């Protein structure tokens, strides 16, 4: 039976990672259904990264109920958590937190080799198509130091897609990118949302955090805003044209990176 809700938050308070817990958003009520394409906007420092990390199960919520694929995240055993995390991909912002001691291909191969207990050579037939999809074939044998910096997010994306996740989180993927590179990302994400042949044409559920809503208004399907520690659902594409929130209007119309 196909799951309808892949992630749900009820009255969740999102706290920052680290020893000092600072509440970044309160009373978040958010339901992500299968095949959704959510775009969450907000000013830099508003808490989008912490929100996405909490939604992905990487940071426990300060309070409230958080479920992943119908299971409450706090009540999972370690085995269940590992199984769920393998269905979730996460692309970190600003470089993607690549493993510097591994090559591009090894970065992508690591989750496959670890979870399926195979060697990198045996994983090659799965890694190469993903690396090619990310446009990184000529960099596969290089370490991140030798890869142009603007391609680091692509490596992070390839690594996040290695296990063919059902749910993919992307934290500000267009930050600092030139227009052509941004268009590449938007086109690929559209293909993933519609169902890419590499992943058996199964639509991927996407959740994007962004400083600018404008590049996403023709690509995302559901939109939200995080402002002053509050979560606001903005609606679908049609609702964006009649939005009244001043910050949302600013993020929808402002010129900036990734446009």
């Amino acid at each position, binding site marked *: 039976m196909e799951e309808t809700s892949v992630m749900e938050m009820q009255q969740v308070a999102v706290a920052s990672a680290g020893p000092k817990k600072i509440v970044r958003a309160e009373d978040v009520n958010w339901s992500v259904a299968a095949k959704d394409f959510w775009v969450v906007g907000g000013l830099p420092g508003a808490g989008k990264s912490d929100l996405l990390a909490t939604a992905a199960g990487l940071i426990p919520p300060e309070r409230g109920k958080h479920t992943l694929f119908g299971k409450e995240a706090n009540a999972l055993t370690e085995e269940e958590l590992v199984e769920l995390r393998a269905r979730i991909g996460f692309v970190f912002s600003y470089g*993607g937190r690549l493993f510097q001691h591994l090559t591009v291909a090894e970065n992508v191969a690591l989750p496959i080799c670890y979870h399926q207990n195979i060697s990198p050579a045996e994983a090659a037939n799965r890694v190469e198509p993903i690396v090619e999809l990310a446009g990184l074939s000529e960099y596969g044998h290089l370490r991140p130091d030798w890869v142009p910096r603007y391609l680091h997010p692509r490596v992070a994306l390839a690594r996040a897609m290695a296990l063919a996740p059902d749910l993919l989180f992307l934290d500000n993927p267009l930050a600092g990118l030139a227009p052509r590179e941004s268009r590449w990302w938007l086109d690929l994400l559209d293909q993933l949302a519609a169902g890419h042949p590499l992943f058996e044409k199964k639509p991927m559920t996407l959740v994007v955090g962004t400083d600018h809503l404008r590049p996403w208004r023709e690509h995302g399907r559901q939109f939200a805003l995080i402002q002053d520690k509050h979560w606001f659902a903005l609606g679908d594409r049609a609702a964006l044209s009649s939005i009244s929130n001043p910050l949302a209007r600013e993020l929808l119309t402002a010129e900036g990176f990734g446009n």
Partner: protein
Amino acid sequence: MPTFSSGATDAPSEGNLFPARIPRRFLNAVGRVLLGLTNTIHGLGAFILISLGVALTKSGLAPRVIRPLIRSQIYRAGVRLLPMVGFLGFALGFVVIGQTVSLLSRVGATKYAGLIMVSSIVRELGPLATTLLVLARVGTATVIELGTSRAMGEVEALEALAIDPIHYLVVPRLAGIAVAVSGLTVYLILVALISGYLFAFVQDVPLRPEDYFGQIAAALSWEDFVLLGIKTISFGIIIAAVTCYHGLAQPLRLEEVSGAATSAVMQSVVACIILDAIFITVYLVM
């Protein structure tokens, strides 16, 4: 009600050898040190237990990934140190025999040369010198590598990939460094024993090789082998766990990594010496 003035002490009163009041600042400083020490022992102890627990419970998980990492650590902490450990063993053998044989010759007690080599090299200097060498070569590098990884967010990236960071980063180092310290210690001991006899031979000490190695064999018991194995593996686990703890347990900024490396080395040395003292007690009881 008497109050303490900052930094002031009362002069000893007549007939009383001790000051009437201890300055609060001094007590605060002692308290902070003790509290810091307690926190460190608590954190380290918890980290070691967690790491050993993960090593045991996930021993069968992803062997195609973890075993190459262990081999890599054995190579880095063991094989690459063979020349240096060989040199150290050679020097130790010369030093110990050089210092003792000349004294023993004066009192006609060269029959104790083998016993001295066992007591000093096999039981004490061999394991400790090897551990300190491995710590210097690999320990600081481990703190820097893991601290940098932590600062760059690679630990969170592993968690996002459903990979246990302790299993991937710490367990291979625990196993690899423990094996390396054990193997290198045996190697150092063998080189030291041989070089010790070479010195005696060069110095025309009246000691035949069969007598020398016979003395060593007679001085060794099965407990020495067991305790040597336990000691060296323990030393290896300690330096691996302490260096991994300082690299991983706390979020580090890049500028804090060098300080963490220094702390890790000092704490590893202290922990190994304390453990060594425990083993001395065991030897004395034997």
